[in-house]
């Protein structure tokens, strides 16, 4: 070993009982100065460690955090999506979890409650949301991540109990349900945010306000193309020992554990992939185009999965007609569940450029292509709206008298969107909601917008069944 001399000096255990620091002599002597420091010492020393950590943090903690008005929240629906939202909320200061409600009491509810307890939260667990609303009077807000067919009843009852509501998309599996949610929001005056979280994603906001709105980099958008492709996955199962009794499943609208776990595939419960996946992106189509669609045609079907347990279409290919302020546009969307190649993205194609964007920070996080005849983007590069193109310096003429410096071929301009998200995907949208609860700012996806998207998306399943183009009337999107 190159360095046998002790460069580090042994540090005595700190006064607060922090982790003992060892030097190499201790190691050779068999850690004699640290009796019983086992392989899992981090577990028992965790107590002392955070105490010493806290003292250090207290000296530098920003004063603002202490003054933050605490919001009492409940999580209604503690399944996969509820847990994603919980994880994001745990990274947001100023929230106090008071309750967790889920009918899978022995598994998801218990796990989420236990996780929250480790974060020094003390939520009560409930099976019945009505009991929760009855007992948890101090709740300010309820986060709803139950299956789609429960959304309307859950959201409306929470609003009428005086709570602000963040409800996952799809707003409802029926337009009647979605409409009644909008009305309940208006009647109660409480906030209702729908979980189309791209609406709060800084990259999408940058693209909408700066790239499309101010700089108009794409010119007139005439076509849109997007997809969410997913590889084949087995149906979701459940640990046998935690199976929910049949009677209880029935009480909450599920015929068996398979339907409980895979409700997204069942008619009357969810809407299939076009709703689970497509809804997020079709929402962006309408947002970026500044219009709701005027018509839709779609082809799809149960091409691959067992139709007995996959009642909705596993494949959907959709074309929307739009009448935008700048003229007509067509938007294609595809979702399929047999091959995950190229994942998910949206591509907006204008007569002056293309924006390829996705929520993912890994795949297609934002690329712009400029049409070679479009005005230069130098101003927007300087302002930091788009990155400098790769190869920029190569294209500069080396001799002002020459038309061109002939060389190996140069790639066309490719810019990136220089905005990325450092937080979990749902965190900004939740933060937007909690800001609004505190009276700071307005919702990025209020009930009316969630409703417009539900109208556009739920019509796809109708169009597949009808095998016909279906028209929207402008009044259809309004309540």
């Amino acid at each position, binding site marked *: 070993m190159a360095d046998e001399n002790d460069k580090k000096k042994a540090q005595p255990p700190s006064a607060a009982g922090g982790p003992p620091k060892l030097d190499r002599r201790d190691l*050779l002597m068999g850690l004699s100065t640290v009796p019983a420091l086992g*392989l899992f010492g981090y577990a028992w020393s965790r107590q002392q460690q955070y105490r010493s950590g806290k003292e250090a943090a207290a000296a530098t903690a920003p004063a603002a955090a202490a003054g933050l008005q605490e919001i009492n929240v409940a999580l209604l629906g503690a399944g996969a999506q509820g847990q994603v939202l919980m994880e994001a909320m745990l990274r947001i200061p100023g929230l106090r979890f008071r309750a967790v409600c889920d009918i899978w009491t022995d598994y998801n509810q218990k796990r989420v409650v236990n996780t929250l307890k480790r974060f020094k939260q003390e939520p009560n667990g409930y099976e019945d949301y009505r009991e929760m609303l009855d007992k948890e009077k101090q709740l300010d807000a309820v986060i709803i991540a139950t299956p789609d067919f429960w959304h309307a009843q859950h959201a409306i009852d929470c609003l009428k109990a005086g709570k602000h509501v963040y409800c996952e998309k799809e707003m409802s599996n029926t337009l009647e349900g979605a409409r009644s949610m909008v009305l309940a929001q208006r009647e109660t005056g409480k906030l209702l945010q729908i979980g189309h979280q791209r609406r709060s994603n800084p990259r999408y906001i940058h693209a909408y306000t700066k790239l499309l709105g101010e700089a108009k980099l794409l010119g007139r958008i005439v076509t849109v193309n997007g997809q969410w492709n997913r590889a084949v996955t087995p149906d979701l199962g459940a640990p046998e020992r935690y199976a929910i009794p049949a009677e209880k499943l029935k009480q909450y609208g599920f015929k068996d554990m398979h339907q409980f776990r895979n409700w997204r595939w069942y008619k009357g419960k969810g809407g299939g992939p076009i709703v689970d996946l497509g809804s997020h992106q079709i929402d962006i189509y309408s947002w970026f185009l500044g219009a709701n669609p005027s018509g839709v045609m779609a082809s799809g079907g149960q091409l691959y999965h067992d139709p007995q347990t996959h009642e909705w279409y596993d494949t959907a290919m959709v074309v929307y007609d739009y009448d935008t302020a700048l003229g007509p546009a067509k938007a294609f969307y595809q979702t399929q569940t047999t091959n995950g190649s190229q994942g998910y993205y949206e591509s907006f194609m204008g007569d002056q450029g293309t924006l390829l964007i996705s929520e993912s920070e890994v795949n297609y996080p934002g690329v712009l292509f400029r049409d070679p005849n479009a005005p230069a983007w130098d101003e927007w590069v300087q302002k930091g709206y788009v990155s400098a193109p790769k190869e920029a310096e190569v294209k500069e003429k080396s001799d002002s008298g020459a038309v061109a410096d002939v060389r190996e071929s140069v790639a066309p301009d490719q810019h990136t969107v220089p905005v990325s998200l450092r937080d979990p995907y749902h965190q900004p949208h939740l933060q937007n909601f909690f800001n609004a609860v505190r009276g700071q700012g307005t919702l990025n996806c209020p009930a009316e917008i969630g409703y417009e998207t539900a109208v556009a998306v739920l019509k796809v399943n109708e169009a597949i069944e009808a095998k016909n183009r279906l028209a929207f009337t402008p009044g259809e999107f309004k309540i």
Partner: protein
Amino acid sequence: MNHRPGTPEGGIGLAGNRESGPLRRFSHEAMNTVFEVHAANADARYAAEAAQAAFALVDRLEGELSRFRPNSDITRLNHLTAGESARVGEAALECLLIARHVHDLTAGAFDIAIGTGLPSIEIDADAFEVRATASGVRLDLGAIGKGYAVDLVAELLEDWGVERAFVHGGFSSAIALEPPPAADGWPLTLSDPRQPSRVFCRLSMRQAALSASGVRKGDHIVDPRTGAPVRGRLAAWVAVPRPAQARDTGPRLAPAAVADALTTAFMLLTLEEIEALCERSPGLEAWVLPDGGSMETTDLRHFGGPADEGAGILPGPTTAGED
């Protein structure tokens, strides 16, 4: 027959015919490698559902722990400047605490903070907050995250009642739960990273974690204490027994994460230091392959041993050179 697919880093192989009897194998790409669940379970569909849930968990952990994900907890910490702090989730916090513990246990030979060193972060476990005391912190959980994922998968499989299972992430981080019926343990091999067909030793493992580190030809490991490349070590393996622990009470005991971190340190520590640590740590077992120059002069060194008969490693016959 597809048996013993040795990893380029040598390390751990699963011996025997993996498709025989009720043994089922499920594979999933994550963390830049392939995770596998081997389950001795009669119900194929149930085992597949359990494996699917396990892989969803691994994907979630990758999203929180990978420094290559721009919005992971670790990336967020890597963007802190001196004095700033950020909240993290449970997975990142636990990995950081384990990493700090192994850092202390090995006097800094294991360090997830490249360049600035682990003292450049302060962990407030109570508040799930991490504060940078220096700018330019570059955390990398590459030497611990796979083990942590394997630990959590083991817990999940037990929840599902799939107790006869073996799980590994890229063959370098593994955990054996209960063995297949009529077996004492899961049959594993330790092999020469330069020639995977050269099996140093056969192990039968149950309720224990086993991890491997090694260098490929031309690669090197940097000693975080000196910044200099390490020479003289080809591979290291570490076994840690799975402690019996009542679930949902107290902090998680993560033997595969600990084993994972220790193998990295054991590529650097002297043999005397490794021996001392094994003597002080009941149940800790290690195998180290010094670079003896040629294949013939390379001897596997063995340290420590299982703490009790109930769990851990039952050594098989050592048969160097066997195919």
